[in-house]
């Protein structure tokens, strides 16, 4: 059934006429129940958002007008049939709602939590045109996915009979996982190679538990395993084994989803002082190595005055982690203004509630240390916004001579990541941009080397979970067609 046929179903029509559009828009947007801000700023692992109750979700779903032309779907990077899943929640068919989500999204419980909805589906919701708050699509997505998981009736997708064709995914982040799931469904023998000792990519080593509990990712991984997907951890493709080894080993297609794991620094004075580190190092220590747990052998600095440089999700995750590890002052230092911050709106809101200081229009120009080489101060350049540039963003410019010296004992640099060069460098014939991303056909995700497909951050640079996941699914479809055409 296509989308309009779905919409024309009797139950949907009845539901639509059961309440006037005006009444629907009069219902105020639901508030996500959350942990108390003071309490949670000391609780490292507890998830901040508690999730909607069934009543809350059903009421929120009533707000949706079930538009004939659902613009929200245009805002969704993978085109989820949003009104269908929302209306299923309204009528209490939560498992049906989850099913509708899963037709398009491989990881709805994850995306419901981490997608920047206010810039995607929710930005395009009809309600905004009527000067109302948009339907809380993200919260509803999370509700349906959580309901399915917690109900215990999570369905393992049916797997086609084995076709005995081996294919590989390199990297176990959202792109690799989504690809693996679709290929397993098609009957392929799927092996996922992961460099780290944990599966999940950024979902595990980057995004903290208070925003995305590990359990949720683990359930998805177990699902894949029960579908026959095989995971090989501690295996760096390009080092432990080469792409050529994989081909020689009989792999008929290779999906490279190795992410953008390389931290960027600003190359300013004092950046190599002790106590200055990348957000990747900070978050890897805390999330992957569990360094804040006394049982863990990995150490981590627990600064009392911690500055995080940057305004993205990684910066928000780092600063809120610092607060949870005991920072009395935790600062975001960002060179533009708050409007330009790339982080999800909700993370900025949560960070503020947790007492994070926002030093926008400030940019570090030097770190200063003591005799032991430990950072003690940072020198900030004060900025102002200039004229809009070609991209329409107002670029920050320095206010000459205006600086500020601030006492700190830890700095986390979170100014972006670059693609991991290992695979691009080790494969001959692969086309790579000057930013180090792999060039692929946008529809098929196939690279210049036919057997290699690629997607996620290795193709896009630092992007989003939903885009990575969408790439994985598209690559699976295209690789399947390509393999079938060949044989």
């Amino acid at each position, binding site marked *: 059934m296509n989308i309009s046929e779905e919409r024309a179903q009797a139950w949907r029509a009845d539901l639509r006429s059961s309440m006037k559009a005006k009444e629907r828009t009069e219902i105020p947007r639901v508030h996500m129940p959350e942990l108390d801000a003071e309490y949670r700023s000391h609780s490292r692992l507890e998830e901040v958002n508690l999730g909607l109750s069934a009543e809350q979700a059903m009421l929120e779903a009533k707000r949706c007008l079930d538009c004939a032309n659902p613009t929200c779907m245009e805002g969704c990077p993978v085109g989820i049939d949003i009104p269908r899943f929302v209306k299923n929640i309204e009528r209490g068919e939560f498992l049906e709602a989850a099913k509708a989500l899963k037709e398009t999204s491989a990881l709805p419980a994850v995306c419901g939590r981490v997608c920047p909805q206010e810039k995607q589906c929710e930005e395009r919701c009809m309600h905004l045109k009527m000067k109302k708050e948009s339907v809380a699509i993200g919260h509803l997505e999370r509700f349906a996915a959580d309901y399915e998981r917690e109900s215990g009736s999570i369905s393992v997708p049916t797997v086609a009979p084995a076709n005995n064709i081996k294919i590989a995914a390199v990297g176990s982040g959202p792109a690799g996982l989504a690809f693996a799931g679709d290929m397993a469904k098609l009957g392929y023998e799927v092996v996922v190679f992961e*460099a*780290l*000792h944990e599966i999940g990519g950024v979902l595990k080593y980057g995004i903290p538990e208070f925003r995305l509990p590990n359990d949720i990712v683990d359930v998805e991984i177990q699902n894949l395993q029960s579908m026959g997907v095989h995971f090989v*951890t*501690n*295996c*760096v493709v390009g*080092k*432990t*084994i*080469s792409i050529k080894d994989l081909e020689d080993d009989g792999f008929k297609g290779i999906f490279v989803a190795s992410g953008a*794991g*390389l*931290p960027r*620094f600003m*190359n300013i004075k004092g*950046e*190599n*002082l*002790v*106590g200055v*580190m*990348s957000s*990747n*190092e900070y978050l*890897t*220590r805390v999330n992957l*190595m*569990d360094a804040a*747990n006394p*049982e*863990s*052998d*990995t*150490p981590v*600095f627990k600064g009392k005055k911690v500055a995080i440089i940057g305004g993205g999700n990684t910066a928000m995750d780092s600063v809120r982690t610092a607060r949870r590890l005991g920072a009395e002052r935790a600062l975001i230092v960002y060179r533009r203004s708050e409007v330009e911050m790339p982080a999800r709106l909700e993370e900025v809101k949560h960070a503020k509630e947790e007492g994070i200081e926002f030093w926008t229009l400030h940019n570090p120009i030097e770190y200063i240390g003591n005799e*032991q*080489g*430990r950072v003690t101060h940072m020198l900030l350049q004060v900025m102002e916004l200039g004229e809009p540039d070609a991209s329409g963003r107002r670029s920050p410019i320095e206010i000459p001579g205006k600086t500020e010296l601030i006492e700190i004992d830890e700095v986390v640099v979170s100014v972006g990541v670059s693609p*991991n*060069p*290992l695979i691009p460098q080790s494969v001959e014939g692969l086309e790579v941009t000057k930013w180090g991303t792999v060039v692929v056909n946008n529809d098929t995700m196939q690279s210049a080397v036919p057997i290699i497909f690629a997607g996620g951050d290795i193709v896009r640079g630092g992007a989003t979970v939903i885009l990575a996941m969408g790439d994985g699914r598209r690559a699976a479809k295209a690789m399947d067609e390509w393999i079938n055409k060949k044989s």
Partner: protein
Amino acid sequence: MNKIVSKEYFSANVIKFEVEAPLIAKARKAGHFVMVKVGLKGERIPLTIADADLQKGTITLVVQKMGVSSSKLCALEAGDFITDMVGPLGKATHIENFGTVVCACGGVGTAPMMPIVAALKKAGNRVITVIAARTKDLIILEEQMRINSDEVIVMTDDGSYGNKGLVTNGVESVINREKVDLCVTIGPAIMMKFVSQLTKKYEVPTLASLNTIMVDGTGMCGACRVSVGGKTKFVCVDGPEFDAHLVDFDEMLMRLGGYRDIEREENELYKEALSSK
């Protein structure tokens, strides 16, 4: 999970392990290292691959007990499993026939030097190995080094064995005696700093294998960064070997000390836990 197939004591604190790792054994070259993690909550630590046996599918690690993580590894026996091991990582040593090469090592650096000495010898170099330690009991791997070195010079600070003096005295005596085409040095950062100063004076090209703090070992975190010729480099992917004369050893020394207090605390806790068992 990688199985330990044999364990041998070189001294009370220096232990050789043979570990099952067929893929790593096949892919590794001299200069490569692995990241090793013992236990679910273990730390990832870098260890050089000292040797490999393709037939048996094993690699050799030589580990010196330092703090918690190396001690946990050293407490394992043949038949036990290492929880996680990944590699080979880093850039392999550039090996060719340079002529005469002096390999200057001390402390933790002696084990990682072994495969380099062997590879240099195989490529036809005249290899002179200088091993240094504070005192006789701390000299390790002398016999193993003799197998692939044309000459082994032992230096002890207190003169209890070999020649009295520092590693630099040993290196300088060779430079004064004959033409040296290359020096390779591995050891505590402070030692490499002085070796580098010495060979710079004599204009002998020198490679230092840097043992910075690492977390992932794959280029993901930047914990291992050092300044080389004024540029920031990641030891785990750009190294571990660099032109010693360009390395900012003072910065490296400063960064190595970064976690010393926490490490000491963890080690105390670990020892307490052991003694209360």
